[in-house]
């Protein structure tokens, strides 16, 4: 029941906004829809907390602690983003960068995107997982090219082709998976693609087929996660799309894609009886972290900068999942949460910063504290948080990752540490002059919605010093689930 609500709200919302999206109150409608989604998601969470894992609509949907926490996170960030985008898009419109028609497209596509991600999270059918991932791509492609500038069209095209091809590979992987499953689960296997069934019999799946399948799925969905060297679409898409989209892209979409990868890894682990999938993930993770940390040094565009930082953090999370085991998975899940909250908060602040100075070039953005303290502090604190500075929660998960790495794979620890240090120097040296110093920019026409920023940072800060036992328990469940 709740599932239907969770999926229905954004889907209907998308249709509704496709009609009324051009009206003045469209933004408010969008906020309301997101709120409804959030409430439905909360209900779902409560249900799971009390009832435990469950399947619905003859097993087409499957909710366990792992995906329900991502559902909650997605709904939350989706809501705050819609709150943020209300004044933001209005200002954009007044700066003449967007027409009413574009705003309609934006609002409806935004909700569609939400729906796609929620479907991807809740579905039990690997086929539908693929379908919804493709749907997410299609809807965001239009969002990325919203401004219709040369740059945005180019970015969207690259995004489209790269992810499209990637997704296609994932489809082949799914087909192989189906093949492997079918001769275990028997011929007319309507449910040979149902994850729960696959999970039940993963021990008997033919290893070599599963190996192939996993590779295709990993490359396919990994492209969307933004793992190096499949990441090339990510900075362009983040930098050229509107800021709320960048926020949800790196805050949510990457998580969802990673979620898909992990679901597949669980099966592959079971089938292969080897650490191969884990090692692949670790390799991708390390490579992404290191490469991204060096990429950071050459950035001039603020949103590109944080896009690369997203790659870096996705790398860390992937590495953690690759290591496996309850602690590492716990850390990875925590890091997923922390990263999406912090990164979206940063993008909110950065968005307003770019509006203040009228450019995304970092050497033009100066003295935010002087002109708009809340934006300045938001950006500064968010930046420090994403750099893994205690007492913010990002440090907590990085700490756990490092400790586990030291225990299981000591060789990897120095690499990670170097990457972290390099990234710190790169980002912070850009952050500081933007926040501090003097400026002659003028304040914004509308008061920016920075409540989301500080809500997110507040949560992140709390998680740094205190993780509520219920939440911790929930993470543990999920972690154990992934560890299989």
């Amino acid at each position, binding site marked *: 029941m709740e599932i239907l609500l969770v999926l229905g709200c954004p889907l209907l919302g998308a249709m509704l906004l496709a009609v009324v999206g051009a009206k003045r109150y469209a933004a408010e409608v969008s906020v309301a829809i997101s709120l409804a989604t959030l409430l439905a998601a909360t209900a779902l969470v409560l249900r799971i907390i009390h009832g435990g894992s469950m399947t619905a609509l003859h097993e087409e949907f499957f909710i366990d602690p792992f995906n329900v926490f991502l559902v909650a996170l997605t709904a939350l960030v989706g809501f705050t983003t819609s709150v943020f985008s209300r004044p933001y898009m209005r200002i954009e419109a007044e700066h003449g960068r967007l027409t009413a028609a574009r705003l309609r497209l934006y609002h409806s596509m935004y909700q569609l995107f939400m729906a796609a991600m929620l479907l991807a999270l809740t579905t039990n059918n690997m086929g539908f997982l693929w379908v919804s991932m493709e749907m997410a791509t299609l809807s965001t492609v*239009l969002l990325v090219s919203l401004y219709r500038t040369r740059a945005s069209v180019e970015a969207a095209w690259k995004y489209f082709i790269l992810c499209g091809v990637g997704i296609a590979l994932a489809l082949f992987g799914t087909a192989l998976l189906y*093949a492997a499953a079918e001769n275990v689960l028997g011929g007319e*296997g309507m449910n040979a693609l149902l994850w729960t069934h696959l999970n039940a019999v993963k021990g008997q799946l*033919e290893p070599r087929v599963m190996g192939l399948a996993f590779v295709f799925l990993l490359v396919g969905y990994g492209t969307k996660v933004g793992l190096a060297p499949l990441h090339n679409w990510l900075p362009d898409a983040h930098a050229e799309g509107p800021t709320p989209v960048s926020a949800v892209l790196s805050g949510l979409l990457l998580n969802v894609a990673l979620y898909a990868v992990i679901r597949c890894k669980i099966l592959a682990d079971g089938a292969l009886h080897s650490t191969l999938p884990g090692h692949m993930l670790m390799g991708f993770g390390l490579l992404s972290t290191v490469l991204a940390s060096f990429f950071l040094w050459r950035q001039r565009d603020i949103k590109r900068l944080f896009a690369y930082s997203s790659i870096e953090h996705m790398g860390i999370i992937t590495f953690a999942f690759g290591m496996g085991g309850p602690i590492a998975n716990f850390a990875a899940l925590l890091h997923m949460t922390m990263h999406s909250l912090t990164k979206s908060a940063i993008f909110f602040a950065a968005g307003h910063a770019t509006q203040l100075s009228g450019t995304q070039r970092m050497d033009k953005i100066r003295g935010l504290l002087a002109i708009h303290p809340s934006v300045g502090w938001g950006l500064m604190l968010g930046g420090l948080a994403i750099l893994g500075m205690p007492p913010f929660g990002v440090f907590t998960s990085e700490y756990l990752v490092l400790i586990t790495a030291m225990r299981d794979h000591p060789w990897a620890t120095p690499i990670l540490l170097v990457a972290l240090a390099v990234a710190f120097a790169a980002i912070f040296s850009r952050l500081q002059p933007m926040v501090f110093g003097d400026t002659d920019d003028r304040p914004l026409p509308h008061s920016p919605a920075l409540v989301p920023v500080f809500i997110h940072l507040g949560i992140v800060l709390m998680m740094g010093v205190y993780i509520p036992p219920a939440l911790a328990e929930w993470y543990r469940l999920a972690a154990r689930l992934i560890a299989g």
Partner: protein
Amino acid sequence: MAHLNLATQVVQMLAGALLLISFAMLAERRSRRLLILLVWQGAVLVASTLLVASTAHLPHLFYSAALTFVLKVCVLPWILFRLMRKLGIERDNEPLVNVPTLMLVGLGLVIFAFGLAQPVSALATTVLRNTLGIALAVILLSFLMILARRKAFTQVIGFLSLENGLFFAATSTTYGMPMVVELGMALDLLVAVFIFGIFFFHIREQFDSLDLDQLESLKED
């Protein structure tokens, strides 16, 4: 088992045709002929699916064959032809750098694909068990084609032939995916092509040509 053998031989013949077509696409310069080749590919796909359906008596394969026919032989080509006319790129041909090398690489990929497919076809239960290698080959070749092309339009065609390869793989290994899933995929494909269409126009109005060489401004320096 006789007719089954016959069917198998026919199907394998069709598979071979599929592979041949993708090689042809790899080398084809003219967008128009490329599109026609794509249609042929679709047709072959439908034929093989029908054959399999009839031999293995799988009703849902008929549906999916029909779906494929509608989508890949009628709708998509129609859209693409209209786009071509609208964009006026029917008879523009793109320079392909040394086709022989491309062919050689393609050959290598085919061998690689066959080797890769061995274990899977070993356990596939279908009549087309050994065609999986071909499907994989088609996929890789289309991939190669996409990254060899310099024009948006031809890239899309490559993308579609990649889809065909996937579909063929699905049918050949497992008699096709569950119906719902196939519907979903078909829908996605349709939407994708629409969006491609939109993009052609965006790209043209921004860069007044569909040459991808101009889409290289976003980079690190």
